[in-house]
């Protein structure tokens, strides 16, 4: 068979020049846009990730996280905008880019019929790495992800967590410069989750750049040097974990106003203590508690008791993604699942432009 024109990308002069003159960002995106039919998955995204750092893309389902990752890993082409990973343009230098990245998507993309080790060997062969080097790397990965004992069993016999770990191992076989992890800890038990966090920290200390998407503020908090909050295909906030938390104001004091008729009274009492958010339908109230939650708690109880407002379900808790979202957007963190959006758009994409490689 003659070699068909699968990929017309060429290592252009411009690309080498850009890398030479590169400003050092491991991931760079400018004005990325992508629509699936009528669904606007990305509505102009800018990213800038410094080398050897962890960047967290935080957002609910359907926010555009996966679409962004798919564009940055050359699986999709943007409708507009440009992006570079490890100095390679996602469209023009797609082939070279792929040799520099690792991707663990939302599915555990491992072959059930192969053993754990064979899965990693297959990926190693497809990265075209020297056999001896790959073997050592694979031994190391199996060890790291606690799969050594199961290495010679077919993946069919693996638990969900083991598959997920093997999948992550596969994304590391090529010793990537930039690692993309799309919701890496979804479906992992707490212990495996902690284990993965350790691996990510270790990789970063060795110089790997990691972009991870997550729905969990805690995860982004623990791992990410910088976090971008994404909603409706747009980045609505970016900064360190501390900067984002400042939006929410640390801990949250939550309670429910038992009698909804008393909501206005409660609101009036609370205004002096901060900016309360009270849901008129449920009577659910939240108040940023800052650094000293217990003092605020006492103050709230005292004031509302004096005013004769009855409250229930009183609690102090750490902010969640929902709180960040409420603080940033005024709406809760929920939306159409991204896959649904993509599927809905596939028909249109296939008829029209599609994600064709040039």
């Amino acid at each position, binding site marked *: *068979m003659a*070699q*068909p024109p*699968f*990929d017309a990308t060429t*290592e252009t002069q411009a*690309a*080498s020049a850009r*890398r030479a003159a*590169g*400003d*050092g960002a*491991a991931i760079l995106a400018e004005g990325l846009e992508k629509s699936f039919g009528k669904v606007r998955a990305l509505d102009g995204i800018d990213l800038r990730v*410094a*080398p*050897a*750092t962890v960047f967290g893309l935080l957002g609910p389902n359907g926010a555009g996280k996966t679409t962004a990752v798919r564009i940055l*890993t*050359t*699986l999709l082409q943007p409708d507009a905008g440009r992006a570079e990973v*490890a*100095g390679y343009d996602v469209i023009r*230098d797609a*082939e*070279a880019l*792929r*040799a*520099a*990245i*690792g*991707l663990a*998507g*939302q*599915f*555990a*993309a491992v*072959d059930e*019929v*192969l053993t754990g080790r*064979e899965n990693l060997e*297959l*990926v190693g*062969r*497809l*990265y*075209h790495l020297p056999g001896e080097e790959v073997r050592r790397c694979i031994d190391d990965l199996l060890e790291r992800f606690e799969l050594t004992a199961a290495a010679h069993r*077919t993946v069919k016999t693996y638990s969900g967590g083991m598959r997920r770990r093997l999948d992550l191992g*596969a994304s590391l076989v*090529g010793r990537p*410069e930039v690692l993309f992890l799309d919701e890496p800890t979804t479906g992992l038990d707490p212990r495996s989750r902690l284990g993965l966090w350790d691996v990510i920290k270790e990789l970063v200390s060795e*110089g790997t*750049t990691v972009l991870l998407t997550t729905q969990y503020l805690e995860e982004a908090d623990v791992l990410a040097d910088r976090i971008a909050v994404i909603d409706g295909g747009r980045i609505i906030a970016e900064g360190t974990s501390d900067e984002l938390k400042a939006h929410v104001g640390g801990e949250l004091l939550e309670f429910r106003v038992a009698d909804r008729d008393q909501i206005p009274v409660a609101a009036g009492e609370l205004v002096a203590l901060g900016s309360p958010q009270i849901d008129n339908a449920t009577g659910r109230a939240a108040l940023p508690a800052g650094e000293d939650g217990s003092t605020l708690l006492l103050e709230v109880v005292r004031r509302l008791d004096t005013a004769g407002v009855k409250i229930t379900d009183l609690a102090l808790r750490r902010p969640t993604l929902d709180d960040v979202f409420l603080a940033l957007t005024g709406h809760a963190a929920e939306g159409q699942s991204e896959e649904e959006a*993509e599927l809905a758009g*596939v028909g249109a*994409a*296939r008829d029209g432009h*599609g*994600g*064709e*490689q040039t």
Partner: protein
Amino acid sequence: MSATAVTTRRPAAPRRARSYVVSDTLAMTWRNLLKYRRVPTLLVFSTIQPVMFVLLFAFVFGGAIVIPGVDYKNYLMPGIFVQTVVFGASQTGVALAEDLTRGMIDRFRSLPMARSAVLGGRTIGDSVRNLFVVLLMTAVGYAIGFRFQNGFANAVLAILITVAFGFAFSWISANIGLRIRDVESAQAASFIWIFPLVFASSAFVPIATMPGWLQPIAKVNPITITVNAVRSLTLGQLPAPVAKFVGLQGSTFTHVWQALAWIAGLLLVFVPLAIRGYRRAV
């Protein structure tokens, strides 16, 4: 963050992924074939169906199908060979749909591998599986009285044409799998077009026995053309009226040439289409 930070860049694309097309395709073929070694029942079941067709036609319908001057078992087996590879080829699309839904294709697309290797490894792997099943069917044929009548070289050529035809059909099937993207639908969809194609052909009965309106369709059916080429290579010299009745008038060379032309034509159309489908399968 700082403008002075410099990452260690790799040398610019040391070798183009395309230069790894052979080794990548082999790696993917290995991966796809391992399935049959690990799950032998898969191979058993893909063999049982053609065996049942042999038994069904040789012993149930065979008595009713009389072809003067030809032993029906010798007539039947080339049809069985081609039917076997065509049914086998339908699995190409099913397997690709499975890889798509499980995220395997995403992983492969994110690797610096030759992109043709995913489809190449799949279609070649399925052709190797087809070759195995055809050899097995030959053994089954010999057990019930089928014989290659034109010597070893013609027998080998007959099997090669059969497998090559299956390879071409694998690419059609790949298009279906990549576009339907759902395992069960791909399975059902392949049945819809393969079944009438196989039965409206000379695979099991001479076209001369079909109703007048069906004959022109059956005659140009690529399955007929291929089955005729295989028969021409396996049936030995037939008396002119018999050859006319079973559609084998003309030289073996002509039949083989026509079959090869169909195989080439199918590949020319469906390989590029499948590649397009693969690129767009996001």
